Structure formats: C-alpha cells, structure tokens
C-alpha cells in the first residue's frame, strides 16, 4: 500500500466513524456534532490558507458570511430552492475570495492580516447597511418549508447530520487530495520559503490567489450549509469573532494537518460546553486550557501526534 492510499484509508476511516457515531449518540451530542462538522469544514477552509500556504487572514468571517448571505438572501429575496441557494452561496464565496485575494495579496505579512481584517469589517458593515434585506444584527430565519432539499427535510436531525457529514467529507477529501498533488505541495513550498519557490519558476502570486479562492470557497460553502441546516442567517457570523474562531480551532487541532481542524473544533466546542456547565466563568477555564495547550503542544493536537508518532501524516 502506498503512502497516499494508506492516508486515504485513514481519513475515510475517520469519516466512517463519524457516520457510525450518529446511530449511537444521544440527541444532544448528535446535534452538537452536526454543528461541529460544519464549523470544522470552515476551519478546513481557513487551514488551506493559514496552515498550508502560510498566509494568516484575520477576515475569514467575510467568506463564511458571503456563503451564508448568498444562500440566505437567495431564499429570502428570490425564493430560490435550497439547492440553488447553496450554489448561490458558494458562487458568492468564489467571487468575493477572488476579488479580496487579488487586492489583499498585494500586501504581505502584518499588512495582509490588517487588510483582510478591514475587508471583513467592510463586509460586516455592509450587512448592517442593507438592513432592509438582511435585517441587520437581528438576522432572519429560514423557514422549515424552505429547507427541504430534494424532498429531504434538512431541519430533521438525522438528515441534518448527514448533510453536515457530506459537506465535511467533501472538504476533507478535497484538501487531502490537494496536499498530495503538485498544487498543494507548491503551496507548502511557498509557506516554507517563498523566495526559493519563485526562483524555481513557480508563479507565487497565482498560487496564493488560487489558495485564497479554494480557502474562501470552502469557508463560504460552510457558511451556506450552516445557515441552511440551522435555519438562521445573522450578522454575528460576519463579526471579527468568527474570523478568530477558525484560527483558534486550527491552532488547537494542528496547523497544516488535515484532521487538525476537526479535532480543534471538537475540542474547543466541548471545552466551552463542559466548562460552562461547571461555572459561569467558563471562558476562564477555556482560556487556561488553551494557554496550557499552546505551551505543551505548540503544534496543536494532531500536529504533536504527527511529530511524535506519525511522521507521514498530511
């Protein structure tokens, strides 16, 4: 078995476990896991840019929200079907990431972080400005009747779980394949040594732009699914907080690892969930654990696993 097939088997096994879990999980955790898989897909998108290309964006909420509003407004204003609405969300993500990428990539390092942050802020303010359509901070609900995709009611927990798993599987397998192919390996080379990569004859700008588009599109797909599966579209998802979340999830799970985003999202979700059950100062507990992890597992959970036990993990 080659390395590539071995890794494929491992990752498909994780997906199979997620599939199996839904038959045994109690309703509460079942619902959580559906949410986690969608958010982990968002983290996967973020990781393509941050973990594999070495570009830190502080404005990914813009892409997540682009997908969410592209989908939501298609239903609200144009009464689109869920399938059309999802496509609208994803296409919005492609367009926005292409434009933002072409502009923001002119800046490097800290400036890139600031520029992406600013663009996301513009996105957030745009949502508020067009309150007439978006209902601003309050947001809007997507009615159950509008969430029936090909006769499948996505508000029903099992269907929702399957939809989330489908999205997550596609994102995971696409990125796994990507990092095993020349394109992904070139992104890693850019992360490791941009000047050298350029002097090997690679179009660094073109590759970075493509990375922003892949990353933004996956994030937008996650945003579109989130709105559709949980029936709500709101401006909170366009705030800075939602730009920082995927950074935390990815750092915790393992930057530049395929499974890191899932592990990080799962970990943080339950960390907050469990600590808020114990005390109202749950952010304090969460904070301490996060600091401890950063100190003792600086490469994140999957990153440490790779370092210690499993060198070839993509």
């Amino acid at each position, binding site marked *: 078995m080659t390395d590539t097939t071995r890794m494929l088997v491992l990752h498909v096994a994780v997906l199979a476990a997620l599939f199996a879990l839904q038959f045994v999980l109690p309703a509460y955790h079942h619902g959580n896991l559906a949410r986690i898989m969608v958010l982990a897909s968002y983290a996967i998108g973020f990781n393509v840019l941050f973990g594999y290309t070495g570009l830190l964006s502080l404005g990914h909420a813009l892409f997540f929200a682009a997908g969410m509003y592209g989908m939501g407004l298609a239903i609200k204003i144009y009464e689109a079907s869920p399938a059309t609405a999802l496509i609208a969300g994803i296409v919005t993500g492609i367009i926005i990431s292409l434009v933002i990428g072409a502009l923001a990539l002119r800046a490097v390092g800290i400036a890139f972080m600031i520029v992406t942050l600013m663009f996301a802020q513009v996105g957030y303010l745009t949502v508020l400005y067009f309150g007439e359509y978006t209902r601003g901070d309050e947001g809007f609900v997507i009615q159950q009747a509008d969430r029936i995709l090909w006769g499948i009611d996505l508000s029903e927990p099992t269907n929702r779980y399957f939809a989330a798993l489908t999205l997550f599987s596609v994102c995971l397998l696409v990125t796994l394949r990507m990092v095993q192919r*020349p394109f992904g*390996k*070139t992104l*890693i*080379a850019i992360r*490791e*040594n941009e*000047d*050298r*990569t*350029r*002097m*090997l*004859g*690679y*179009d*660094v700008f073109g590759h970075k732009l493509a990375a922003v588009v892949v990353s933004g599109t996956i994030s937008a797909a996650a945003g579109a699914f989130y709105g559709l599966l949980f029936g709500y579209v709101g401006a909170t998802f366009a705030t800075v907080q939602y730009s920082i979340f995927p950074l935390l999830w990815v750092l915790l799970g393992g930057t530049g690892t395929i499974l890191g985003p899932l592990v990080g999202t799962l970990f943080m979700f339950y960390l907050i969930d469990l600590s808020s059950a114990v005390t109202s100062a749950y952010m304090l507990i969460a904070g301490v654990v996060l600091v401890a992890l950063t100190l003792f597992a600086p490469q994140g959970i999957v990153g440490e696993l790779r370092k210690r036990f499993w060198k070839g993990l993509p």
Partner: protein
Amino acid sequence: MSLLSTRGLSKNFAGLQAVQNVDFDLPEGQIRALIGPNGAGKTTFVGMLCGRTTPSVGRVSFDGKDISHLPAHKRINLGMAYTFQITSVFANLSVEENVALAARRRLVGPEVTAHVQEALQKVDLQDRLDQRAGDLSYGHQRLLEIAMGLVQNPRLLILDEPTQGLADSEIEAFKDLIRGLVPQTTILLIEHNMSVVMQTADMVSVLNFGQILAEGTPAEIHANADVQAAYLGTG
C-alpha cells in the same frame, strides 16, 4: 550566438552603485566564471539576470528575446536555473521533496522520481532522500542546491559560489560534474576558489566596484595586473 546578454545594466541601492552599466555577453555552451572581490556586485548582477533583483536601468535578453520586464518565474521557465549563494533550501522538507519541487515544474508523475534520484546521485546525496534538508551539513545543503539546479535541466545554470563550504574531495567532484554539463547547458559560475575557475571556466569576467574590469581566458585573467591589484585591494 549569445544565449544571454545585458546592456547598460545597473543597480543602485540608496546611493550605492552596486552594479554600473554592465554590458555582458555569454555565448551558448560556455562555462563562464564571474569573479571579483567581496561586495563587487556579483550576486546583485546575477539577481538581475534571473529577475530576483529589479535593475535600476538596463536591459537583459535571453535567447535573443528581451526579458527585462518578465517576472522571475517566467524567466526561470524560459530555461534559467539559479542556485542561491546563501543556502536557501526548504529546511523543513525532505531532501527528496526539495529536488522534486524543482523537477515538478517541467515533469509529472513517475518521471519526477526518476529525475530526482538521478540529480541526487550526481551530487552523491542519493542515500539521504528522506532526511530533513535542514538537518544536512552545510556542505551537503550546498550540494542539494546544486541538485535542485541540475534537475531543472536548464539551458543556463547560474551558480552563486557553489563550492563554498565543500570539502576538497567534493570540490573535485564538482569540477567534473559541471564540465560534464556543457555544451547542453551554459554555465555562469560565481566563484572565489581559483582552482575551480582555472580548471573549469572557458572564459572569466571580473567584476570590481560594480563594473566589468576585465574579460578573458583563465590564463589571461591570471596574468592581468589590474585584476591582481583589485584582488590585493590596491587597485
């Protein structure tokens, strides 16, 4: 015919004239050594050839085509390869992946592996495929740089002080290696080691204070009084 030529090529760094008005012609199939004291502008000059450094003024043409306005990656794709003076391998990637990255630009699939092995064999690093490049000794990193240049099968190979930090036996092997590359590959070699220059170069260009001081065969350059003065620092 010249594979590469420059006209009036200059570079200022905030008042410092690192390269001044250089006209340079490199015929196809030649091994050309570029020598000169530290700070003479050699790295800056070749940087302008391959697009790493933007000239202040001047033109560069490659294979009869003006490439002055092409970005670095397009110049490389025309058949130039450049190895860095300051070792710049992908430290966190394996030796194999370093060379594969250089190979993949023109090759796909199983061909990559075959060519990577061949290039590593040429510099005697074939046993270190899986090693992390950053863990190699300095000399071996230099050899890895050379392998990354070789695997691109370039028409013009620019080597910036490739033998710096190599052991004597490795330097001997290097001489044989580059003599074996011509005439398919044209070589521009920045070199401080005079034995390498004398034994490999067809022609030598001397750069001093950013200007071409002399050009000639190794023997002519060796006998040139100006060149000796420049090196001794009395010129």
